[in-house]
């Protein structure tokens, strides 16, 4: 029996996840609604003045995007570990990192990408000027992508743990803090009219680091989780 080429196998995993999510569409919209609700809380809690909200809009949009992504991450591997699909992947002999990366990519497309597309609207509600939209979208693209990989590592480590969602946040958020610092700074610099090239480049570097080494950590963590 010939083995399936790895890219074909990864594509199958990707399509499977998208198909499954299509059948449970409401699960995809929940993080998005959470995003809008959380960003709405800030003007209510601080000030309705757009001129003042503009100062913190970069940070608020970023923090809300991180928290919303985290919501969906806990269930990333849970269903597959419970019904044994992950075990089959580990035993299949295919490079596990690619399969997991395909799964993370599907997850990003279902949660991260909608957040990124929603962010200019949410940002404008907080006083973000039109000129900063480009930086906002680019920084959040890299940021949510990296967070999906980091969250994948955390989810792989905590799959099956009781009340794992809080633990997952506790593990992923400290690792995501450099991301937040650079991403929010990029947007704030764009709002002030400075060039955000520096933080954006660092953000891109972090993204590629996560993309290259993240699957290694994820496959190690998954192997540990399905061992017993």
């Amino acid at each position: 029996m010939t083995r399936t080429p790895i890219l074909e196998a990864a594509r199958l995993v990707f399509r499977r996840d998208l198909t499954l999510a299509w059948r449970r569409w409401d699960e995809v919209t929940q993080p998005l609604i959470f995003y809008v609700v959380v960003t709405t809380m800030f003007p209510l809690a601080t000030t309705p003045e757009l001129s003042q909200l503009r100062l913190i809009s970069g940070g608020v949009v970023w923090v809300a995007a991180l928290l919303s992504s985290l919501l969906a991450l806990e269930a990333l591997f849970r269903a597959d570990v419970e019904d044994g699909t992950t075990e089959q992947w580990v035993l299949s002999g295919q490079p596990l990192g690619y399969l997991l990366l395909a799964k993370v990519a599907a997850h990003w497309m279902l949660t991260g990408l909608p957040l990124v597309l929603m962010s200019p609207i949410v940002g404008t509600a907080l006083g973000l000027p039109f000129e900063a939209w480009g930086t906002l979208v680019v920084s959040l693209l890299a940021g949510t992508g990296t967070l999906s990989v980091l969250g994948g590592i955390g989810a792989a480590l905590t799959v099956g743990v009781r009340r794992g969602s809080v633990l997952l946040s506790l593990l992923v958020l400290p690792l995501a803090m450099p991301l937040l610092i650079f991403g929010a700074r990029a947007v704030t610099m764009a709002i002030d009219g400075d060039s955000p090239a520096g933080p954006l480049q660092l953000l891109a570097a972090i993204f590629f680091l996560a993309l290259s080494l993240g699957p290694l950590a994820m496959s190690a963590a998954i192997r540990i989780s399905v061992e017993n």
Partner: protein
Amino acid sequence: MWTWFHKLGSPPHAYRILGKMAPWFGWPALVLILVATWWGLWKAPTDYQQGDAYRILYIHAPSAWMSMFAYVMMAVAAAIGLIWRIKIAHAASAAGAPIGASFTFLALATGSIWGKPMWGTWWVWDARLTSELLLLFLYLGYMALRASFDDPQRADRASAVLAIVGVINVPIIHYSVQWWTTLHQPASVTKMDRPSIALVMLIPLFLMMAGFQLYYGWAMCRRLRGEILRRERNAGWLKEAN
């Protein structure tokens, strides 16, 4: 020739050897810390800029150094346990985590106490303080992950992966004062050229660092013995020894 090294991987031998090693770490640590305390509080002169309040440096800097050292040791032990599946290495990693977390907390607390009279603020979000706080979160996350599993083997291996993923923060802390010049003191000792601190103030700092390092060794011996006892509580060798 390497038998003594391989023996360290066996819990009963390690327990015995650690018990013998502990006083060799402990007494010199006590002496060095006492001498450095006397020197730092009494003998070293008053700083012309900061007065006497600078003396908290003698606790603050060694704690911060040890917090990073302890994390790297924890990550290295975790990696050894993960790669070569040596249980003692996982036990060492677990034993070292609370020590490192305590050092991190001490560094943050003493830094905060120093900051108030010196720069008028208990806290500031500059690069080094933020990344040191991050280190505390990483320690706490590691200990939380460890505690969340019932199966000890899975706890070991999962937290080992986490420790290795988090080790990237340590060089960020160390080099943060070079990359971003902010409120925190830039590097005075480990720069490439001569240190920019007076020798009579530098010596107690080195003595205190050595004392803390030896204290870490002593604490690790004691905690690792306790960790071995906890893991091997049903083993035959322990029952026979009692």
